[in-house]
């Protein structure tokens, strides 16, 4: 096992190579472009044995991945922002078609007000498509998550596509140490549960009338419920294989005796840990519940982890305009109907790459900043 200083995008490319992906199709877009560049270089040099299909749009990239997956290949793509939005129709298709494609999303804001910087609004606005969504806080976690995502997506009880999301630039272009474990110990060669068979032809995606469609969707929904169980298992097996703890559903950080909790996802949650440590030093009993998996949303894990907490501050690096932060909605909804639920506050931070420092979390917990939209960069 080697350890290298890699950007988030390079970590993705290495993980894709080491996951022995068979087909990559993409239409590059900032800030995920270097993922495709790195893979193209490795395919060209023979270092990676895969078919790279360059297409004319993200819509086609996802279409090619769906086709490749139906054909029995382990498929991969990467995109961001406008590219992900342009894929929207095919995201739905990949779900109902039950193709376990894995996609890297370097999160970026959507214009106009042209902006290439970190903002989770692009993937958050795809939360209803049925994709599994995993959010990362470090480049090591990005590397690990790609292989873990394939394990969950390809499981015969799941068979759903998964996106691995990481903050654009803040992770995608930032170099950090990454341990490049041999993923073949953890992820087998791909063996499709179902594939197009030319000797035994069938129609795929045929008309599904009202008598069947709702049942088909019900099955997709049940697969999401089952995915949480599989994730639990994959998380454990990952630890057993590499002796390294990479949470897949959620991370509990100093929550045991906490009366106040921060909920966050993505790169900002690493800053939140610094805040938790600083506040703890001053005797404040605060912990962090870091959400890794946003879809399926881990309702039971959330309630269990935050049991006994009096106050929760949810930090979203995205917002559902006309409403509030998406994670804030989910956390509130998780506690609905329980007796004596905690007070839950929502904060929107870091949109369009606005820098988020640990001080924002500290000051909010100390009551020095009102929850809501927090635009100041506090140093």
């Amino acid at each position, binding site marked *: 096992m080697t350890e290298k200083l890699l950007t988030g995008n390079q970590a993705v490319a290495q993980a894709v190579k080491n996951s022995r992906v068979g087909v990559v199709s993409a239409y590059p877009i*900032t800030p995920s472009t270097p993922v495709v560049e790195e893979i193209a270089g490795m395919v060209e040099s023979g270092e990676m044995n895969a078919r790279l299909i360059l297409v004319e749009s993200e819509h086609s990239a996802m279409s090619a991945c769906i086709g490749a997956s139906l054909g029995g290949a382990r498929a991969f793509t990467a995109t961001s922002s406008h590219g992900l939005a342009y894929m929207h129709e095919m995201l739905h298709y990949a779900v109902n078609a039950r193709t376990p494609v894995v996609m890297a999303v370097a999160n970026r804001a959507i214009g106009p007000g042209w902006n290439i910087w970190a903002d989770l609004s692009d993937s958050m606005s795809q939360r209803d498509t049925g994709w599994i969504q995993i959010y990362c806080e470090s480049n090591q976690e990005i590397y690990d998550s790609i292989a873990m995502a394939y394990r969950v997506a390809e499981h015969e009880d799941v068979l759903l596509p998964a996106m691995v999301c990481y903050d654009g630039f803040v992770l995608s272009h930032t*170099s*950090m140490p990454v341990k490049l474990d041999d993923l073949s110990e953890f992820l087998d060669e791909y063996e499709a549960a179902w594939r197009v068979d030319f000797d035994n032809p069938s129609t795929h995606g045929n008309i599904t009338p009202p008598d069947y469609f709702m049942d088909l969707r019900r099955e997709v929904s049940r697969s999401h419920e089952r995915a949480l169980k599989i994730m639990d298992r994959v998380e454990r097996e990952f630890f057993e294989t590499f002796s390294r703890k990479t949470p897949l559903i959620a991370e509990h950080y100093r929550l045991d005796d906490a009366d106040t909790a921060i909920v966050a996802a993505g790169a900002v949650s690493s800053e939140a840990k610094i805040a938790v440590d600083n506040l703890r030093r001053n005797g404040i009993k605060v912990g962090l519940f870091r959400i890794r998996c946003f879809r399926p949303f881990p309702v039971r894990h959330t309630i269990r982890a935050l049991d006994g907490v009096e106050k929760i501050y949810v930090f979203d690096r995205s917002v559902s305009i006309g409403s509030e932060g998406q994670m804030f909605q989910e956390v509130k909804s998780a506690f609905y109907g329980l007796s004596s639920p905690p007070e839950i506050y929502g904060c929107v931070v870091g949109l369009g790459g606005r820098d988020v420092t640990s001080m924002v979390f500290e000051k909010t917990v100390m009551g020095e900043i009102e929850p809501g939209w927090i635009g100041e960069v506090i140093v």
Partner: protein
Amino acid sequence: MRGLDEESIEELRWEIRLHGRGGQGVVTASKILAESAFAERYHAQSIPFFGAERRGSPVMAFTRISEHEIRERSQIYTPDCVLILDPLVMRVLDVFNGLKDGGGVVISTSSRISDEILPDISLTLVVVDGVGIALKKDLLVAGNPVVNIPVIGAFLRVFPHIGIETVEKVISEKFKRNSKRSVKALYSAYESAEVLKIRGKKRAEKVYSKKPGKIWIPASKPVVGVAGKTGYWRDFRPVINYSRCTNCLNCWIHCPEGSIRRENGEVVIDYDYCKGCLVCLSVCPRRAISSEREVFA
């Protein structure tokens, strides 16, 4: 310089901020520093910050070096050291913002640095003629001198935690066959850099803040923004020969920056904001626009 050459601090950890312009190798310099520190068994992190993603525009990068795992994901606001690859950025940015008392400043320039422009704290100032070294060692990319390697060389003079041989190794692996000139420039800068203990005289400036309006529509005209007047990004200046110009407006319609105005029946280039892309020159059907090398006084 606190932390840079002293071992006796509670936690060994340094934050370095780099300033320059697109094309000068700011991001690469930050990465080389991080990789070298990583090779010296430190935890290291390199964060680029691209502004307009364009040659000539201001670029920042941040390097963190620590004995412990680095959990920060934010930019660096209170650096131990700032590396300035191009003094021109000082026109539009307070590059010394948040610099710690006793911190370091490494600057690439051939002229004398007045203490009037340095902040009112005690500093270790390192001056290196990066452009001169790049020209002498033939370190050019697309015709422009690359000053990032000389600045690293100068920085190493006051940062003993990374060996110059380690940086040489990182550069050799990174640039492969083209690394020889870079390595020569690295050593030349290390040897010729001038190190001074100094106290600046410049008072901190008030930071400008903007008030949001009621409805924001994403439409704009060239005005002073966060990047200041962007004309200094230019390497070449388009010049209109009015005796050939027929006022066909082809340049006006093609200018991607909206920096060509119509004034008294003529097209006029706004040099405060023209970034020198020379699209106007290539679309002029009468070849009435030529280019001149930009020389900043």
